[in-house]
């Protein structure tokens, strides 16, 4: 399709896409290459990177392989961020769709509800949720989803408000189509572009959120994650700055890749906003 073509011409977006594909590959295949567990203490602690060829990125405070940690960390970062984004979409899209499509008191009620979630500072809420339900992949994913759906609802509502008076929607009404059909088949497919763009940015934000939580010690203790790696080596930042530095770069690169892809998608899907076409 057109979009893929436009996107594939956007070099920067393709770089982002390539990095992302690579990360997904690492997440899926990495554990097969690096068998066992990233928690295993394999060598003496604090081996700097590029010093020992078996442990390319060195070892951490307990003598665990940093590279193995990075690889396993890719998994959790991507998993949590994708799943939480999907959940946020599953909450936000129906809510926004109903509010925007029906308007009136439905809109009023749903938007007040959304407002509640938007009013509470989101990161603080995420912290509280994770702490209360005790850190685990589930509570972290859930908390991130729970604080990130309101923008989706707002966006979808806006799109539905805009599209519900489009003539093809009116035509569908005149055709006697059900509201469900109109929402799902007429309006939703046409509001997908901005949702996709938002979703790509939400994945990026979710990665940052997940790592921030893990940094604060609110990560799943069973799972090696980038945020955990930074948080746990923070106390030794003077002796071994690379232990905090390396996972931070991993996060930045991933989030950057997602942002580049998101920008590219935005250019491809919303030509109005793109810098490419001026007329």
């Amino acid at each position, binding site marked *: 399709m057109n979009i893929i073509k436009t996107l594939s011409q956007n070099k920067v977006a393709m770089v982002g896409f390539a990095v992302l594909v690579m990360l997904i590959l690492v997440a899926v295949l990495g554990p097969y290459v690096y068998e066992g567990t990233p928690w295993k203490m394999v060598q003496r602690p604090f081996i700097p990177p590029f010093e020992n060829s078996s442990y390319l990125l060195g070892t951490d405070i307990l003598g665990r392989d940093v590279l193995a940690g990075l690889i396993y960390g890719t998994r959790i970062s991507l998993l949590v961020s994708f799943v939480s984004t999907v959940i946020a979409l599953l909450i936000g899209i129906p809510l926004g769709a109903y509010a925007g499509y029906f308007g009136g008191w439905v809109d009023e009620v749903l938007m007040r509800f959304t407002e509640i979630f938007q009013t509470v*500072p989101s*990161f603080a809420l995420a912290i509280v949720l994770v702490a209360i339900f005790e850190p685990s992949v589930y509570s972290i994913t859930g908390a991130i989803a729970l604080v990130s759906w309101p923008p989706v609802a707002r966006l979808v509502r806006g799109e539905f408000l805009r599209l519900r008076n489009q003539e093809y929607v009116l035509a569908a009404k005149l055709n006697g189509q059900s509201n469900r059909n109109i929402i799902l088949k007429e309006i939703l497919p046409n509001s997908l572009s901005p949702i996709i763009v938002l979703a790509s940015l939400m994945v990026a934000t979710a990665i940052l959120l997940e790592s921030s939580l893990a940094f604060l010690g609110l990560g799943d203790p069973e799972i090696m994650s980038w945020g955990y790696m930074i948080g746990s080596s923070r106390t030794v930042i003077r002796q071994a700055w690379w232990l905090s530095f390396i996972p931070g770069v991993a996060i930045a690169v991933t*989030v950057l890749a997602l942002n580049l892809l998101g920008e590219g998608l935005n250019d491809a899907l919303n030509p109005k906003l793109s810098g490419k076409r001026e007329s």
Partner: protein
Amino acid sequence: MSIKILLYIAGRAVKGLLVLLVIAVFNFFLIRAAPGDPAQVMAGEAGATDEVFLQQLREQFGLDQPLYYQLWVYINNMLHFDMGITYRQQMPVFDLIMDRMPATLLLTGAAFVLSLLLGVLAGVVAAAKHRKWPDSAITVAALVFYATPLFWLAMMASLLFSVYLDWLPSFGMQTVGEDFAGWDKVRDIGIHLVLPAATLGLFFTAVYARMTRTSMIETSRLDFVKTAKAKGMKPSRVLYRHVLRNALLPVVTLAGLQAGQLIGGAVLTETVFAWPGIGRLMFDALFQRDYNLLLGVFFISSAMVVLFNLITDVIYCVVDPRIEL
């Protein structure tokens, strides 16, 4: 101010208060869902205790009452502008929050102003030099800062500027043990503020730069810009007089939204730089199960969001004559 605006503000305030009340109730139950209670935490720190002591603490805090009664007491107190007493510090919650508020306001305010000024400036430059090297440089920098985890940036900044270069203090708000007064105090707080405000601000600078740039580019495609050009105006003047003000409208909205969120959202920065603010207070209150304090912080920061949204709307209405409240 006209009656209309006052009525509007009153209406919004009432709605906002309702939202806040719902939030308070929601938070009340949320926090009670957490395992353990404040008595256990305090007893836990003591290292040795027994049921008698725990019970004494619970009675003192009113935690021995049924939950619905505690909620009623809490809401009732709230309606009388009383946020209760912190369990740990034995101070009125409101006083404690107000104690910490200046630090947070200083940090977030500085970061906010800094990021808004820098961000808008960068965005304008990028848009003015659209598709030339300054645009690319700013866009790339903005993207990178946007993608970098805040806490990590903070750590790296403190490593570089405090540890290796020893230019700036890496934690706290004032030099400990020094009793500065007057300008010395201002200077002292100022140098402590640099790193936290800069790292917190950088992220938002990136946000505003990106937004301003996009908005400027979009606005410069609008018809009235064509009109301005057709008048024979210099491009820089067109940019400044016509594009900028219009382009800033969405930035104002975003800024207002974030200004409110910033109050409760600086936990990470406050943690890394040991800044004695609200975010840190919240974090500690959470782990100490200081229910009243935690609820209080949430209430105040939510109220800030409501307040800032309202202020944004009013500003918007002043900036954009089309908007009628």
